[in-house]
């Protein structure tokens, strides 16, 4: 799993690539928590661009929950551009009811 974070106007866009699984979830979670802190400091929403992710297991999903808890409602966390597999995983886990999911990074606000 690789990770990239960029400022995009009035928001932060995180772009993990590869897989988030039992081997990579700790790195994903560490990056994610740091990104949430950056977003809180900047008072900017955090968009997670999922387009480069092959899939994410429950460990990655639960890392998203920890990130949401870290944000404490101070900034929005939005998921964008999941591939078909990720969209299926978000639906099966009902995480599409916990996080806003949009088709395109540009739609994520």
């Amino acid at each position: 799993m690789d990770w990239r974070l960029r400022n995009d106007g009035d928001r932060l866009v995180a772009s993990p690539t590869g897989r988030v699984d039992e081997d990579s979830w700790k790195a994903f979670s560490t990056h994610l928590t740091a990104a949430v802190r950056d977003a809180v400091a900047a008072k900017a929403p955090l968009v997670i661009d999922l387009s480069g992710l092959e899939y994410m297991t429950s460990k990655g999903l639960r890392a998203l929950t920890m990130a949401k808890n870290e944000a404490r409602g101070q900034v929005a966390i939005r998921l964008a551009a999941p591939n078909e597999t990720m969209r299926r995983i978000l639906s099966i886990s009902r995480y599409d009811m916990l996080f806003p999911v949009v088709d395109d990074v540009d739609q994520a606000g």
Partner: protein
Amino acid sequence: MLVRFWGTRGSLPVAPHADVALAKVARALVAAGGRRFADEAEAAKFARAELDFATYGAFGGATPCVEIEADEDAFAICDMGSGLRDFGLSATRRCAEGHPRVYHFFLSHLHWDHIMGFPFFRPAYETGARIVIHTGHADAEAALRRQQEAISFPVPFDELKAHIEFIVHRPEESFEAAGMEVSLVRQSHARGSFGYRFDRPGKAVVYSTDAEHKPEDMDLEEDVEAFFANADLVICDTMYSLGEAVSLKQDLGHSSNVVAVDLCHSAGARRLALFHHEPSYSDADIQRMHEETLRYEEAVRGERPRLEVLCAYDGLEVSL
């Protein structure tokens, strides 16, 4: 080894109302499309071949009770939910054919849905029956006695005729029982629960119900994976979706289908049985959860061999 599921529902026994049966019959008749059957056997063959399980069958509504048949000298039973009543009747029949009247119970914990079947366990009323209750909870005897106090039940515990003994085990200390090596592990649940692993040469079954796998405790899951390692069957609490388990249902002590798949994948387990079904779920809801779990397993399998995912129902038998 043979695993028989006598109760698979969580929290509360449930039974279908009349309109549930009517809907299933109506769906089956529509699916039959006017075709004629020579007899009920032929109609049943059609139902199994052409209808989904939620239409021709039912997942059942008895609370947790799972028999593990591994030894001709003793019965082994996980938990005493309302499914225990049916097991007791079956065991009585088998004992009449010569099976020894020795029963080893393995209690996950003492919440009501896991002990409520014991006052209705017929062998407990039989002189000469021997009942050994293995538990990680020092107050297991108090819990069983309490539910047979006069305010709750007409027959006091002391009037049971069987010889009943309690053995309190410490986690991670294995022991021999019912022809198996048994180990237990502490799990996250209100007042704690225990998962059990049953090993015979070349075969292993894990019973892990009422266990919450919280996001903040993911670092500890390597221990769970080690406990599940290479098991032929893992029976796992999958009461909620992960989304529910980390939000509305957090801290209620239950797990999800997707976490169960991931734990089994990492552990190299061969089969997963979805278990402790939410009592408000219809048969169609449980079937949908099973189908979604199959899709999830395929999505995150990667280069691993396929994990077989079963959906436990009252009456299911799994041969290992």
